[in-house]
């Protein structure tokens, strides 16, 4: 049912008038009149114009207030964004890159004086072939005699080939391809910030191997991963071939391309190249798509084995050296990016017929270990080119002779002197110089490398403290504005906030910028961009403070703050927030955050269960306030009469009661007993208690069930068995699960709608048709994936089908249905009954939940998209989440805690719980990159990012939307003024933001405190980045979708129809 907000044509005109006549006859004050009907009303002209004027004035006022609310929240969000930017600037390290290029002059200086006469000369090669097999973990190639794993012993050639060396190749974290390529060519240590720019690497500024090839007139041919194009484009030959790197569904294209390229160019005749590089991605993609434990992996490794033994090794002549290595390993799920043993250990294989007889390789686990950066000086020396300027590695001893070590020592020492990395540490410098003079190169290098590693973890503490301060202030402001100042007053104050913020921003921007330009003060701001950000932040803070301190004092706020948390449930909420925020005080708590969050949510479930079971007396101020201000709604929602109804018909026509109970008995089998009517005098009726206990149990049970789905962190070790693995995601029972989801999810939602008889008009269309068909399409999509994974490729081209399905679902749910929702689909129905010949009763079904039912349709839109972009097990988790969400809404409606802190906090916990149970962790490897390619084949700006964000932050989306439902669910119209409703929604949204800001602030503080901790890059830093992202995502959704798009429209529309 569509309708326009200004001229609602909800009902048949005649019906409406009939109902109005009825209401007049029954002598009640309330009338369901709307503007268009007013003209046809037989009220007097004077009344009409007066009503209209008041109505228009109210609508206008509401619009203005609504817009200003959005601006206010937007500014507060902006302040938090600035805080995050400042903190990240200080915390995420960048290394000072020196653009010097190495030359032989420095490196060979003094070498002739030292005698190497009795040494044999360094073997030098003219040609080099390098084959990089992405994610080639060491145990893939080394012999594993007693292993039954499918990925073991399928790549034996590297172990068995003569004239070769095989090493365990130890990469440095972060183990992402871009960082590893930088390390492998520059010999340096890329910092963590680079990990974020894995997508769009820029050309390396630093001196590197490829640049040295280029400078020394060696032609480099390349085939494979297109990351190389981004990094080394100017230095690579124009005949190089690049392939899309991040499309992990594609296991073959890159490998086939590299093999063909090698076939073409690796011939005796081809004299054009000096260095031939291939970068294969097949193994990595198999890992991302299926995990290592899959038959695809053995096939892939056998393919590699055949390629190396049959095509590569025979073609290497005496003048050529072959390197085969991986850039990083993979963990047990096939992902990488962290620094676990499996991710760090990869393979290095060196082969040349010139080597003569090499010592036999060990068959045990004691292969020689070399660092990844050691490759850089080794190759430079073998090709007789200068070692790149930044190199920190040490040549591999088996291959390189003593003269090479001396040259490397010269290079490292030169770098140390030029870069002045260790300037602040004179003791260490003298120590190093002693080693240099004694020519103890290996010790020198190890010492220097260790110190560089710790030195490059240098933090900008001023920016960090600015970030923390700004975030704390924004937290205080949000608390004061959304929680402490009464919402009615805020409604008036927004008119002052917005202008004062804008003016203050302008003033501080101008003054600070001019001070900065002229005096270069404050000096901690690097350039005008940060100066502007800083001044805007100050402007927002001052602009907010002026209207606040105009009316209130700090003392008043402190008193109000303690009043606010003075009731039982608020204290529970504060306790939950505190416990969650304290998670970041220890690495173990952060590791086990998934369990802790589920535990806290279960605790809330048990507390509500206790509440319903024992109904203890609580002097809840908030509940009293709510009870007083929305008395009608409570009267309705408290008992079974909440099932419907327009209050006037309910009061005047007693037969209606009978009707209602009939109606209700049909719904969900919640039987109505007569004696409940007497319990209405109690705060919670017996029936309500049973219902509430049922919802609490459901919440607990669903929490426990969902928490079984987990992708374990590597640190969780044996105490966690990962269930969110591809074997389970693409198993028959997961398929059965999402197949049943097509019916079970709509049925469950329908059940919740039926509690308030809201399953009317638009609801069946949305839930039973749109949602069902979207779930069906999603099932088909994932079933195709399942089929491909389990039984190999399909007889037809599935890719086209999959893309069509994904685009249809995404477009339909995110675009079409949201436009459809904006038209205002109502979930009410006019029910006319003849009780006798003369009088008729009209009942509006779904009246009591007219706001909530409609708002939830919007949530359903997003649920459709998020479901689709989640893997099968995650879809099951989201199904449980919807049930939990609606149960939570019911629980807090029954307990009359709609305005309490506990509601948003519970929803926040729910979001976190389902973030973890949809197969995520606060680590970089656990990002499900493959879902980024569901809409497009290649990385295309908004689409890849949208699908990744929906996949990762899906639960946060749902919760940030439905936090408004805490207010709107079971909220009958014409009880609260539009402004009041809006300010309550903002207050609840504010609480969700407060919760996440506290978490973000806590993670800021603790990651700063632990900045020298062993685990900082592995545990604390990813968690802090995740908090930032979560906070920003929730900000965006709350401000732009929940408040700006949805709430205003909904409240206006309902107010239009039920305006009195």
């Amino acid at each position, binding site marked *: 049912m569509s309708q326009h907000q200004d001229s609602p044509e909800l009902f048949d005109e005649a019906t409406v008038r009939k109902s109005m006549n009825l209401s007049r006859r029954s002598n009640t004050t309330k009338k369901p009149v709307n503007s268009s009907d007013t003209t046809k009303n037989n009220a007097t002209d004077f009344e009409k114009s007066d009503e209209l004027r008041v109505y228009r004035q109210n609508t206008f006022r509401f619009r203005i207030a609504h817009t200003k609310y959005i601006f206010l929240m937007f500014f507060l969000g902006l302040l938090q964004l600035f805080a995050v930017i400042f903190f990240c600037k200080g915390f995420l390290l960048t290394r000072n890159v020196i653009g010097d290029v190495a030359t032989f002059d420095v490196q060979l200086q003094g070498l002739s004086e030292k005698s190497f006469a009795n040494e044999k000369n360094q073997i030098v090669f003219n040609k080099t072939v390098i084959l990089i097999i992405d994610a080639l973990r060491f145990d893939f190639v080394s012999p594993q005699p007693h292993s039954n794993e499918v990925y073991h012993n399928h790549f034996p050639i590297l172990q068995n080939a003569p004239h070769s060396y095989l090493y365990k190749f130890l990469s440095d974290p972060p183990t992402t391809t871009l960082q590893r390529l930088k390390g492998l060519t520059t010999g340096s240590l890329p910092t963590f910030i680079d990990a974020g720019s894995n997508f769009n690497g820029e050309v390396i500024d630093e001196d590197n191997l490829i640049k040295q090839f280029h400078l020394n007139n060696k032609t480099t041919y390349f085939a494979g991963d297109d990351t190389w194009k981004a990094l080394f484009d100017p230095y690579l030959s124009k005949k190089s071939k690049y392939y899309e790197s991040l499309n992990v569904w594609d296991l073959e294209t890159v490998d086939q391309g590299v093999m063909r390229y090698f076939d073409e160019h690796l011939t005796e005749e081809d004299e054009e190249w000096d260095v031939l590089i291939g970068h294969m991605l097949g193994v990595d993609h198999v890992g991302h798509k299926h995990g290592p434990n899959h038959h695809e992996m053995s096939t892939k490794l056998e393919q590699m084995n055949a390629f190396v033994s049959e095509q590569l090794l025979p073609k290497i002549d005496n003048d050529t050296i072959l390197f085969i290595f991986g850039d990083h390993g993979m963990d047990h799920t096939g992902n990488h990016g962290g620094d676990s043993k499996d991710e760090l250990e990869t393979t290095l294989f060196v082969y040349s017929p010139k080597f003569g007889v090499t010592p036999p390789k060990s068959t045990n686990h004691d292969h020689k270990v070399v660092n990844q950066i050691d490759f850089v000086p080794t190759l430079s020396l073998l090709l007789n080119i200068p070692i790149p300027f930044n190199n920190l590695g040490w040549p591999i001893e088996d291959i390189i002779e003593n003269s090479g070590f001396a040259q490397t020592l010269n290079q490292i020492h030169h770098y140390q002197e030029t870069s002045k990395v260790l300037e602040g540490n004179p003791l260490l410098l003298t120590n190093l110089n002693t080693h240099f003079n004694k020519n103890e190169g290996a010790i020198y290098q190890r010492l220097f490398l260790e110190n560089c590693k710790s030195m490059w973890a240098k933090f900008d503490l001023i920016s960090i403290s600015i970030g923390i301060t700004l975030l704390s202030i924004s937290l205080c402001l949000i608390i004061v504005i959304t929680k402490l100042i009464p919402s009615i007053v805020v409604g008036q104050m927004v008119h002052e906030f917005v202008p004062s913020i804008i003016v203050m921003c302008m003033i501080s921007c101008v003054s600070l910028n001019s001070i900065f330009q002229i005096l270069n003060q404050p000096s901690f701001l690097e350039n005008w961009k940060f100066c502007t950000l800083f001044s805007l932040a100050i402007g927002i803070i001052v602009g907010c403070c002026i209207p606040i301190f105009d009316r209130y004092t700090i003392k008043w706020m402190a008193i109000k703050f303690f009043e606010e948390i003075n009731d039982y449930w608020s204290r529970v909420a504060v306790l939950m927030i505190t416990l969650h925020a304290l998670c970041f005080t*220890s*690495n173990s708590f952060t590791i*086990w955050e998934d369990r*802790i969050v589920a*535990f806290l949510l279960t605790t809330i479930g*048990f507390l509500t269960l206790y509440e319903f*079971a024992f109904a203890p007396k609580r002097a809840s101020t908030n509940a009293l306030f709510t009870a007083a201000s929305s008395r009608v709604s409570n009267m309705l929602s408290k008992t079974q009469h909440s099932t419907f109804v327009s209050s006037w018909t309910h009061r005047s026509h007693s037969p209606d009661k009978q009707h209602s109970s009939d109606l209700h008995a049909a719904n969900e089998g919640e039987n109505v007993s007569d004696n409940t009517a007497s319990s209405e005098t*109690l705060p919670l009726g017996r029936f309500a208690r049973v219902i509430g206990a049922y919802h609490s149990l459901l919440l607990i049970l669903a929490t426990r069930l969902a928490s079984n789905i987990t992708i374990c962190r590597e640190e969780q070790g044996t105490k966690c068995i990962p269930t969110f693995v591809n074997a389970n995601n693409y198993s028959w029972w997961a398929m059965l699960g999402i197949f049943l989801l097509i019916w079970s999810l709509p049925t469950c939602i329908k059940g919740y709608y039926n509690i308030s008889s809201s399953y009317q008009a638009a609801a069946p269309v949305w839930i039973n048709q749109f949602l069902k068909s979207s779930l069906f399409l999603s099932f088909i999509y994932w079933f195709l994936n399942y089929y491909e994974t389990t039984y190999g490729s399909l007889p037809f081209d599935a890719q086209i089908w999959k893309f069509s399905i994904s685009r249809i679902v995404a477009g339909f749910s995110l675009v079409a249905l949201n436009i459809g929702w904006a038209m205002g689909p109502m979930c009410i129905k006019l029910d006319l009954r003849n009780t006798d010949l003369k009088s008729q009763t009209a009942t509006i079904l779904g009246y009591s939940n007219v706001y909530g039912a409609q708002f939830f349709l919007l949530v359903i839109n997003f649920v459709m998209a998020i479901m689709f972009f989640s893997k099968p097990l995650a879809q099951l988790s989201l199904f449980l989440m919807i049930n939990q969400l609606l149960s939570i809404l019911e629980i807090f409606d029954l307990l009359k805690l709609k305005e309490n802190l506990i509601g948003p906090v519970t929803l926040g916990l729910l979001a976190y719980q389902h973030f973890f149970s949809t197969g995520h962790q606060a680590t970089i490897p656990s990002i499900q990159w493959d879902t980024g390619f569901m809409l497009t084949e290649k990385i295309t700006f908004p689409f890849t990012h949208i699908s990744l964000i929906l996949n990762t932050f899906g639960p946060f989306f749902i919760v940030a939307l439905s936090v408004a439902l805490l207010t709107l669910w079971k909220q009958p119209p014409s009880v609260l003024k539009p402004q009041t409703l809006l300010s309550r929604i903002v207050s609840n949204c504010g609480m969700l933001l407060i919760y996440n800001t506290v978490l973000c602030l806590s993670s800021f503080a603790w990651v700063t405190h632990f900045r020298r901790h062993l685990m900082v890059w592995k545990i604390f830093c990813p968690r802090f980045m995740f908090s930032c992202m979560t906070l920003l995502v929730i900000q965006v959704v709350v401000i732009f979708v929940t408040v700006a798009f949805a709430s205003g429209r909904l409240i206006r529309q309902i107010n239009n129809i039920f305006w009195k």
Partner: protein
Amino acid sequence: MTSEKRPLAKKKKSVTFSDYDTVITPSISNNHAHKKRFLFSGFRRSARKDHDGSHQPVSMRKSLTTVPVHLLFLLYYYMKTFDIIKLYYMAIPSQIFYLMFQFRKNTVYGGKKLMKTNYSLLLSSFVLALPVLSLATTIIFVLCGAPLLSMDYLVKTIQLSFHCCILAFPAIYTIFNCNFKVAIFKKYFIAIMFGCWLSCIVIPLDWDRDWQEWPIPLVIGAYSGAFVGYTIGAYI
């Protein structure tokens, strides 16, 4: 919170959970001598007239004899040995002893002290109620996140919940003996549960101590909670 699943409801004895259901209004309590001592007497409600005495008030006397000193010894023993089975041998007799000579003697029901131990009830509640209740407690533990990785863990959880039930046994027996007034004794269950809840905090820590193994922290937590609960139970 074990008490939600109270299985034995006899005729003429109504199971009462809610505070409101067990509220004694002044009009009724006037009939009794000890009206000042009633725990819940603020909330107005027109109570039904009862003939079987199910609305007679129950309370605990404030006395030092309710302090369960034996729990401290048991706790000390357990922290030395971590032997959950041997703990049963010591906990069961001492809890029954505590119930008979300390807890029961301080229970005031209907204005009178409970003078006699109802041995048949003691036996039947121990044999029948405890297994059922510990099953219910196991379910609660599992719902709260007790590990289900292997059968071994489940057995340990069952052992833990049996310990909890033994700790709660004095309260359980008294509830049976006093016409199922759950609401007044729920504080003991809450104390034990809260002890378990709080002790979970040490499980995730990576100290690699053997006492972090499931379910040792929870047993310790339950005993500490029970000690605190029985000690201050009469005062709250």
